[in-house]
């Protein structure tokens, strides 16, 4: 058997920088992800490098996330939070002194937080730089996505916005990594043929589709999702392997639901005396996650949660990794006998699945990779770019419009809870294009206002806000963000048309929404 496995991790969070508040609840999304996913992922990749494992994978770093990871204010706030967690975990060691079941877990958290803090400081608080080093060492390939994770097909109505989302992301990537991204992660795997022109102009060579986007392509792709295709415009489209996705995170049968794994919700931030945990909460006025969790998912028992067992959870991760590996090898073996080329499994996941949502997820990945390399099977861990370098001849098909959301299309982002956003976005997009055409050249203050107007529009276009409105996990915040960015945009639009830019208020907004400092507003022209 000879096969290839392309592991793609898409790391993204919306821009949740709030300098106007000392501690802000939604900023904790970033801190939780750094602590539970990005740092442990870096640790894992460094271990693979130290062990000289022949593994290549793809990391998609969204521009909003990489901007936040490099922001000195957020770095300092994360470190403050991490220091607090070390302190809390040390207190927990004493607090659980008489509890033989919990005390080892408290000690585990002390060791873990201290270790991750050393890693954080060791990379000079620069996770982006650390991942860039791994890329330079040939361990992974970093790609980008749209600037603020906008759903690109919905922007096909306004070519300027489509171009701005892609080109801004590309320029941001180039500034961080000194090279252009070869691939681009389509947010939510949202594809429509109308977006290809902009991708082609940016020399983006590949993207990933959900499996039905490829399987329903015309003509029917000969190799299914086991090989990429060229679109008629010469872009390579890789199809997500449905079976590997379902096994890992299907709500019906995914591994993370095993009762031995750590419970996501049960956290001392909710369980313990409020005043005791208050200094360590994301927001001082509300209970929230600290990251110290003592319980496992558990099955039965009338909803009572049993104490988390580190060994049992590690064993579960190994079992699941072995199961996953066996299933992959079985399918690849069967497929290799049919195909005239080595089959490729494309397995993209949200990076935050591993460690954050599924605490043991990185142990699973580690066991899977090591198991595969030790199995003797001819299985190569590759990246889509590497694959294309080795396989320049592909079938030409027209993929179908699709996303990886519920129902395979836009039901998550266009429904009764969030469709109200679209008319306002349309109006803003058209006004931004008008502004760009009107101000082909501009003085410094006007150019700053134009750039900020572009930033506000980009932020309003993020797919995260309609997603949150759909899931109902923070609709007030999402509504507020959409409105604030649009209102700022319209306000700047009025000022620009009137020729009276308020420098003081502009500076205040620039300091708050400070991403993409060199944004080119002419992308909208």
């Amino acid at each position: 058997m000879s096969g290839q496995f392309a592991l793609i991790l898409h790391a993204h969070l919306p821009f949740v920088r709030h300098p106007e508040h000392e501690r802000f609840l939604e900023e904790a999304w970033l801190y939780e992800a750094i602590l539970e996913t990005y740092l442990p992922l870096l640790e894992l990749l460094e271990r693979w490098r130290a062990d000289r494992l022949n593994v290549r994978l793809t990391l998609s770093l969204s521009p909003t996330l990489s901007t936040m990871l490099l922001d000195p204010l957020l770095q300092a706030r994360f470190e403050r939070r991490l220091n607090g967690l070390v302190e809390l975990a040390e207190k927990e060691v004493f607090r659980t002194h008489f509890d033989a079941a919990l005390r080892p877990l408290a000690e585990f958290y002390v060791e873990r937080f201290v270790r991750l803090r050393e890693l954080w400081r060791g990379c000079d608080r620069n996770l982006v730089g650390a991942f860039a080093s791994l890329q330079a060492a040939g361990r992974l390939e970093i790609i980008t996505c749209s600037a603020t994770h906008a759903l690109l097909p919905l922007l096909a109505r306004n070519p300027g916005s489509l171009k701005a989302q892609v080109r801004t992301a590309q320029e941001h990537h180039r500034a961080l990594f000194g090279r252009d991204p070869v691939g681009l992660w389509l947010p939510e795997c949202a594809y429509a043929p109308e977006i290809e022109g902009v991708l082609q102009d940016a020399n983006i060579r590949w993207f990933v589709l959900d499996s039905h986007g490829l399987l329903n392509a015309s003509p029917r792709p000969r190799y299914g999702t086991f090989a990429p295709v060229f679109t008629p415009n010469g872009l390579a489209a890789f199809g997500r392997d449905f079976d590997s996705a379902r096994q890992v995170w299907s709500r019906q049968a995914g591994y993370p639901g095993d009762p031995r794994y750590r419970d996501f919700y049960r956290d001392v931030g909710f369980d313990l005396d409020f005043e005791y945990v208050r200094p360590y909460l994301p927001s001082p006025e509300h209970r929230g996650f600290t990251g110290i969790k003592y319980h496992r998912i558990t099955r039965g028992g009338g909803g009572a949660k049993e104490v988390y067992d580190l060994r049992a959870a590690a064993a579960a991760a190994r079992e699941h990794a072995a199961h996953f590996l066996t299933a992959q090898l079985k399918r690849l073996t069967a497929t290799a006998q049919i195909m005239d080329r080595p089959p490729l499994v494309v397995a993209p996941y949200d990076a935050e699945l591993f460690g954050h949502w599924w605490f043991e997820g990185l142990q699973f990945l580690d066991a899977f990779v090591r198991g595969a390399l030790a199995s003797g099977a001819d299985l190569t861990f590759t990246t889509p770019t590497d694959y294309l370098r080795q396989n320049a001849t592909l079938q030409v098909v027209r993929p179908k419009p699709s996303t990886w959301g519920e129902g395979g299309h836009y039901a998550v982002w266009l429904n009764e809870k969030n469709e109200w956003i679209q008319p306002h976005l349309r109006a803003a997009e058209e006004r931004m294009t008008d502004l760009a055409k009107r101000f082909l050249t501009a003085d410094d203050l006007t150019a700053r206002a134009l750039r900020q107007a572009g930033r506000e529009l980009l932020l309003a276009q993020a797919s995260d806000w309609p997603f949150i409105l759909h899931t109902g996990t923070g609709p007030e915040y999402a509504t507020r963000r959409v409105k604030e960015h649009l209102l700022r945009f319209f306000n700047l639009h009025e000022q620009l048309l009137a020729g009276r830019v308020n420098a003081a208020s502009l500076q205040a907004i620039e300091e708050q929404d400070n991403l993409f400092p060199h944004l080119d507003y002419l992308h909208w022209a």
Partner: protein
Amino acid sequence: MPPQPSRRPPPLPPSLFEGDVPPVPAVSGPGARFFTGSAPGPVHLPDAGLPESYATGRVWVTLADPQRLLVQWDFSADQLRTAASQSVDGHLILSVRPATAPPGGGVLVVLPAGATSWFVTVTGGGTYLAELGCYQPPREWKSLGVSEPVAVPADKPAPTESAEFATIPVDVPFAEIFAKVKEAAEVSAPLIQAINQLREAGFTALPEIGAAAPPAWTPEQQRALAEVLHVAPNRRVWVGSLDVTELVREAAGEGPSAPSSAGFAAGEEAAGPEGIRRLAGEVSSLEAGGAAPGRRGFWFNVNAELIVYGATEPDAKLTVAGRPVKLRPDGSFALRFALPDGDYELSVRAVSADDADVRSARLEFRRATEYRGAETHPPDPALRPPKGEHVNRSVIA
């Protein structure tokens, strides 16, 4: 009656006040079950609101999924009222139809006053457009706006056709390819087609790019691969970012939260041509209704914790239960201990900075709880998991 002399309470050690700040606003998160207090304040919204419309008089249709189109129109409330008042029945009508069908065909939706958007069910692939209008006396169709057409993809595998292959090296920039193609001709076709056309016309640049011979492939191979892929014409299972949150939520004992769209299909009437149906009575921009919360039983948790506090010289070394403790700058310390039922002892030891002096203490504790009614014991197995919908979770979008 003479005033009573005030009785000042004896001073309490500061460590007992640790955390005893005034009550704070409560949580909306999963800890709500375990925490009492007032509700958090409202989220600040901008003072100025977004306009209700931009009055551009335009109509848009957007693909929500291959069975559902979102139609939106941008008219002011006055514009809509005026148009409706001039119609024969006081209503505006939305027509969604195949792009080739005449006005007035397809789905006709009689709109309630003030509606600015509508989801319309369609079946089958094709190209559709939406038109907003009304019937004016005597019964003449008056169009207020027509959308651009939108293509609805057929959501099933395409019939197998002959395969076309091409070679495009990933490291040759598109700009370089385009430059050479444009040297040969002005071509507006998709890249691969353009190269192939030029090659047939004698174009010899870019020899490594263009059509490639399809490898041999048999029907048997095709059938065998389809079995491995589990290709199904109607897929029913989806796995994306939302699914993992649901998986975790369900694993935590919560039910699925995704709202059902089942409530939106009411009011479908007679089927029209090409699988389109006439709809009436749907309500636009519905908030999905959540299930009524189940009745919660009376609950009670009691826990006990112990605070051990004291002070010594600021530069002394302190251990509690053999573990070093960091002193505060003033030499004081305070530690909390969960105290389950049982008998316990604790040793505390302070050593001066020069190691010359040692002071130690041995503390003994006992907790015995008599439960009446439902028995609980910390760590309390009756503590239910936090409710997922209240958790301000990280976003994976």
